[in-house]
């Protein structure tokens, strides 16, 4: 029975918002710098049976090829924030590696921009 005024929103209360059930209620990724365009790839796309949760196994299969975090979320059809937590777990458990985009605070590099320009012209 709850005490009036007691907060229900704590870890012990468990996941109250259904999509977060797969993250066991966690809403923050432990690995920082996981952005929409951060690229991830599975070290081993096919993992043995019960080694990881089904959602994580799905993510690993999708990441047999390098994908951005946003692409993974779209392909496994889970909200971004949920996918970030799961990817973060998989990185920590060394099932995946990642590569972030350029550091946000620095101005883009002209050589890279020239490459983008040439690439678009060739499309």
């Amino acid at each position: 029975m709850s005490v009036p005024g007691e907060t229900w929103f704590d870890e012990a209360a468990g996941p109250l918002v259904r999509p977060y059930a797969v993250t066991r209620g966690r809403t923050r990724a432990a690995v920082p710098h996981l952005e929409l365009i951060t690229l991830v790839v599975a070290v081993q796309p096919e993992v043995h049976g019960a080694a990881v949760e089904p959602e994580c196994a799905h993510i690993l299969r999708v990441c047999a090829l390098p994908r951005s975090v946003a692409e993974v979320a779209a392909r496994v059809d889970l909200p971004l924030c949920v996918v970030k937590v799961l990817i973060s777990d998989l990185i920590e458990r060394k099932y995946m590696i990642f590569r972030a985009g350029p550091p946000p605070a620095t101005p883009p590099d002209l050589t890279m921009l020239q490459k983008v320009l040439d690439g678009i012209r060739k499309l």
Partner: protein
Amino acid sequence: MASGNSDGQFPNRTGDAEYGNAPGRSGTGAAVRARPVLEALPVKVLIAGGFGAGKTTLVGSVSEIVPLRTEELLTEVGAAVDDVTGVERKTTTTVALDFGRITIAADLILYLFGTPGQERFWFMWDELAQGALGALVLADTRRLGSCFPSVDFFERRRIPFVIGVNCFDGVQPYPVEAVRQALDVDGEVPVLLCDARDRESVKFLLIALVEHIMATLRVADTAPTG
């Protein structure tokens, strides 16, 4: 044959890589296949504009993949969180982001992200804008005001942008200069007519954007500091 694929669990797809034991079974962490590499640098540009300005259409015109949609989940906690009734009021809203991809080279991938059109999702723009090379702002002259917030946003954050005046049905009743005046943007900001459905037209806009970004950087380089 000491490799981990002797049990048939891990087909050796590359033919030359040794598959180790599965993670969790060996206790030594992840297995070693031909070590995956991430040689590509991901970069992004934003596609902004009011609701219905043609952002997703534009992304689809140049993307090498059918534009994907991902959803960010917003948890809106009711005002009375310490109240048990607050549990029922804790609702979730999703904001859809549409995006596409262009592989520029083996080591460079460009992502195009459409920004959410509704202004109430503005806080999401900060994450979207972080690290963005620049932005295309799509203007719809039937509702020109709907792109003002985007223009303000990029101006305030000094993110280089170009304006594409989307010609719906190939018709554009206003000259570019009139649009520029109405939007009151700096003289250096390119304002161009475009057709979001047309690949060449969108390529032209993207080229104008990257050239504008480069010009902005060069100016910043030569400008006296301080």
